[in-house]
């Protein structure tokens, strides 16, 4: 008999007023008992709507059935047959729009906590799993993957499973992409990411860090001189946008990329690391996405007294996940909605003193279908802040496309790729944010997996 409780088994969490002073994980994870209880809420529907909601088609009811029986190792095998990074996905996927959004239990009450169960299984395996990932038999074909973020890691994992000899080239000194430089420790512990990457290495994937492709090696060199038969580009969307307003070059204005990279990748929050960061008192984070929430919550943990999210539309249009907004509010982040920056004002030393803002109201819907924010004339006011983090979006880095003849991009700088992830260059595939512009971890992983299938087809039919 399934567990017919209308609500998910609650997730244990650190108290908001304690966690907003540390970088330990906010959500502490299910115990085996909690996981079994929650797994029993799954009705094991025949038509499996949840699986269609997952970009990498995790066999959800099957793994949950194993969890309900307490067979966690079997559950793990089922998940990893289609998903290379379950401990990551269980934490950062927007499940409410994907698997859980399609769950039949969600019609009356809350859906099954698929994300929490995936995380539980992955964490359980990291703690208790005994088998080392197997190195599949090599098929002798070499593939290069550019970028060790979600798209590249997922592509590399799928290719390695198929027996390809895969080398990942990563520009930073650590593999993981946005999982290590962007998403903070308290949402995704870096030790978890490292363990997922170690599994790929066990499968035979080679990772070369400190390699800025397009500068140190070109795609032509990879294919012509180094024997790679195909290349997958998963270089993400790392180029930060600024607003173009007065005062953005003042001392104390960061892009979200810089702010988060200093804290996460370069570990400015940790004792013993040399990375400097401004310990600000009052900070405005401009933007309303998940990245903005991450930056704001980091700032609070770094000791800021007042942390503002400045967003030009209202709560309803806020693009961040509901859970992130909820956590941010609990932690004391102040939401300045329907507010837009006009300029940033300096003190006598060229440091940020305040941000001049203007109040907005919502007008008619624009092309995106959302109501367009319109300035309310004369409503300007000064928000006293000593730091500003611009978190208004990113676009793909032009380094590769400008050094690779025949690689086409669209007007927004995104690489052109067909539905099988083939770019305009023979043998070169691309996926994730480099193609779509900034999106989610799981969409990038889905693209990497699709590309791996296409690369297999391409090389074996050559």
């Amino acid at each position, binding site marked *: 008999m399934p567990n017919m409780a209308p609500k998910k088994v609650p997730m244990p969490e650190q108290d908001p007023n304690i966690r907003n002073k540390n970088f330990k994980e906010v959500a502490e994870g299910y115990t085996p008992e909690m996981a079994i209880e929650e797994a029993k809420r799954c009705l094991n529907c025949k038509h499996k709507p949840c699986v269609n909601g997952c970009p990498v088609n995790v066999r959800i009811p099957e793994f949950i059935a194993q969890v309900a029986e307490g067979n966690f190792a079997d559950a793990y095998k089922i998940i990893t047959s289609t998903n290379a990074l379950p401990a990551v996905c269980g934490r950062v996927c927007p499940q409410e729009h994907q698997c859980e959004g399609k769950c039949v239990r969600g019609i009356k009450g809350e859906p099954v906590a698929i994300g929490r169960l995936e995380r539980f299984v992955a964490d359980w395996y990291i703690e208790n799993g005994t088998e080392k990932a197997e190195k599949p038999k090599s098929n002798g074909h070499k593939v290069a993957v550019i970028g060790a973020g979600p798209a590249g890691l997922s592509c590399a994992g799928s290719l390695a499973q198929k027996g390809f000899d895969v080398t990942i080239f990563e*520009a930073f*000194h650590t593999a993981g992409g946005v999982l290590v430089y962007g998403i903070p420790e308290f949402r995704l512990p870096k030790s978890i990411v490292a363990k997922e990457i170690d599994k790929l290495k066990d499968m035979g994937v080679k990772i070369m860090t400190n*390699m800025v492709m397009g500068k140190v090696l070109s795609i032509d060199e990879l294919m012509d001189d180094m024997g790679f038969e195909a290349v997958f580009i998963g270089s993400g969307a790392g180029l930060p946008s600024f607003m173009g307003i007065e005062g953005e070059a003042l001392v104390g204005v960061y892009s979200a990329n810089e702010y988060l990279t200093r804290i996460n990748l370069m570990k400015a929050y940790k004792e013993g690391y040399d990375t400097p960061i401004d310990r600000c008192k009052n900070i405005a984070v401009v933007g309303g996405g998940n990245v903005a929430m991450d930056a704001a919550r980091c700032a609070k943990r770094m000791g800021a007294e007042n942390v503002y999210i400045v967003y030009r539309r209202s709560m309803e249009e806020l693009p961040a996940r509901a859970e992130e907004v909820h956590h941010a509010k609990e932690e004391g982040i102040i939401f300045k909605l329907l507010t837009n920056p006009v300029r940033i004002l300096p003190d006598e030393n060229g440091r940020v003193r305040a941000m001049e803002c203007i109040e907005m109201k919502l007008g008619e819907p624009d092309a995106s279908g959302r109501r367009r924010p319109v300035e309310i004339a004369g409503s300007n006011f000064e928000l006293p802040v000593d730091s500003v983090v611009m978190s208004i979006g990113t676009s793909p*880095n032009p380094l590769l496309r400008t050094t690779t003849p025949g690689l086409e991009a669209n007007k927004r700088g995104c690489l052109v790729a067909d539905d099988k992830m083939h770019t305009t260059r023979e043998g070169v595939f691309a996926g994730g944010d480099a193609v779509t512009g900034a999106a989610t971890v799981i969409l990038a992983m889905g693209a990497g997996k699709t590309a791996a299938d296409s690369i297999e087809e391409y090389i074996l039919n050559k």
Partner: protein
Amino acid sequence: MFKIIKKKQLNSAVTLMEIEAPYIAKKAKAGQFIIFRVDEHGERIPLTIADSDAERGTVTIIYQAVGRSTIMLSQMNEGDSILDFVGPLGTATHLDGYKKVCVVGGGVGNAIAYPSAKALFNNGAEVDVIAGFRSKDIVILEDEFKAVCSHLYITTDDGTYGEKGFVTNKLQSLIDAGNQYDLVIAIGPIPMMKFVSKVTEPYGIKTLVSLNPIMIDGTGMCGGCRVTVGGEIKFACVDGPDFDGHQVDYDELMKRNSFYKEREHCDVDTCRMLNAKPE
């Protein structure tokens, strides 16, 4: 890991190192830079490439120990390895098609000016070099410069070696003496580059400066290295590090570079021009 093949003390504060980095050595061009990190706890620090040898697979860096990371680096020896070394980053200096060039270096900036002088000289340009230092005991690269230029003029602030005075005085006198430069390259402390650009501006001599703002990744990803050039925001790591010296907002750059100065507990700008009035 990247092995230190050679270490040479050029003066009491300036060190030359050859690092084994074969992929970078194959591609490095004058004007480009690398980013290094000594160990897991260190910062990522950009340094301009002073020289490279594709056959030996080495990249030469010359740096002044001014902050925590460069001090840590100078405590390492031949045979030791550093954790990270990435490059070549930035856009190479465009050095083709010039007939007569004056390369102006200030202090340790001479190390960055040297590869440009060398490349220009090898391209067949007539190269004058003005190498400025505070004092005789910190003069570097004299023999190296002599091999790649028509005239080497050394200036010292205190007159203990070469001519007494600033590089700007020498540049002005060379221009006054009728030298017609079609390019001036100025590399050194920010005030020096600012004042060299002021000297050349009235004559309309194209002037390139190499900027060294604070950055993390060096690939356009953090935006920390943004500089205002001709009223527009540029990322020094990918759009530069070379820019039109007449267009750069030096005062803003100086403020941005002082961001973490208090933390470093040391005076990064050693340029005496800070206290001097331009003539």
